[in-house]
């Protein structure tokens, strides 16, 4: 018999796989260990329904106080967005008078119609705005499209960096954008038709310097319209 420490999970084991579903063929080949841990990681990031008995509000408050004490900065952070689904568990507020009438079942069709009109009006405004001026993408803008394009980064043994993303339906091309840590754009590669790109020292796009830390993301384009974009993630340029 011998005593051995428990086997820890190294975060790098999941690096580059976080955007893939556990049953994605690229993940399935990795075996049950990675699949199960990836599934657990996804649940960690997006917990869904909070388990019975968990007191998330109280925990968030206490943990916020802890961070404030340790870091030495007044902590005014928002509620952890990942646990927001927990909050509908709270009892619904009691309504009376005008609000009870307005939000009651009788008024729901009218409210639904109103909401639909607002959405349609918003779509019309966005579309007319896009026709009036060409699409301009800047790294500091609030994302105009959902960050729903799965992407992954892999540093290979030879030092090259492999950037990969899933094809977006209706995408005619992809644009890669590289940003400095202060979010100013340093390089852009447009009109890509592949869903991956290798960065190699000695053959770098203009604006990228070997050894620099940059952020990258990919935009799926349909003509001049951006239809999806990936998360912004950091890499070290080979």
């Amino acid at each position, binding site marked *: 018999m011998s005593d051995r420490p428990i086997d820890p999970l190294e975060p790098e084991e999941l690096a580059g796989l976080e955007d893939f579903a556990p049953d994605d063929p690229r993940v399935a080949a990795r075996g*049950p260990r990675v699949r199960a841990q990836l599934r657990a990681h996804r649940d960690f990031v997006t917990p869904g329904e909070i388990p019975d008995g968990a007191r998330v509000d109280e925990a968030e408050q206490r943990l916020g106080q802890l*961070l404030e004490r340790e870091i030495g900065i007044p902590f005014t952070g928002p509620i*952890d967005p990942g646990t927001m689904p927990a909050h509908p568990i709270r009892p619904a507020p009691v309504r009376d008078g005008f609000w009870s009438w307005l939000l009651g079942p009788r008024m729901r069709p009218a409210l639904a119609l109103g909401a639909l009109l607002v959405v349609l009006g918003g779509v019309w405004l966005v579309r007319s705005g896009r026709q009036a001026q060409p699409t301009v993408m800047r790294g500091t803008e609030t994302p105009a499209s959902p960050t729903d394009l799965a992407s992954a980064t892999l*540093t290979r043994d030879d030092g090259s960096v492999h950037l990969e993303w899933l094809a977006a339906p209706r995408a005619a091309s992809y644009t890669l954008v590289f940003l400095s840590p202060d*979010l100013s754009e340093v390089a852009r590669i447009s009109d890509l038709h592949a869903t991956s790109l290798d960065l190699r020292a000695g053959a770098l796009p203009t604006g990228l310097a070997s050894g620099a830390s940059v952020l990258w993301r990919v935009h799926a384009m349909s003509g001049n319209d951006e239809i999806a974009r990936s998360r912004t993630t950091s890499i070290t340029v080979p």
Partner: protein
Amino acid sequence: MNRIPSEDIPDDVLLARYRGGPDTEEGRRAAGQLLGRYRGRVYTWCYRVVGDHDRALDLAQEVLLKAWRALPGFGGRSRVSSWLFAIARNECLTAVRPRTLRVDPHVDPVELLVEHEDPPMVLATREEEAAMEALLRDHLSPVEQEAIWLRCFERLPVPEVTRLLGLTNTSGARSVLQSAREKLRAVLERRRTAP
């Protein structure tokens, strides 16, 4: 320039701001935002594993403290979420099983899975886990493989395994685990009777 609301700033950007001046007010504020945005999720994960509010809160505090102290050395080779998950997962596993494990090299890993409810108590090394992975792959369906792994190695309670795998049958992961164990028991029998 449009300002991005703090909750929409990507983790990488907050990390870069922290690295730009770890001891400055802006760097510390970025670190607070970065760790703070995960505090509910860290607690929730801990709660899923231990099923007790006070214990989960203690564990979550420990995770965030470790993360704060380790932040200067975080290389950014994985996402912040993966890094924090690894810390939370390792902290929870340490809490629910002894710090060191008794490993008997003479025990057949298959026998452990079949005969013991708690194989990780005796299976610890990466080599043994690799052997176990190969065994599971060879003899179990993908769902059974993951169910066994989540239950035995990630130490998740059966209802959590059911939820994670999205199982909708009435017995949930319990029947999947039972089926997996029966298959492994058959493998063990074949090994025992093999010449």
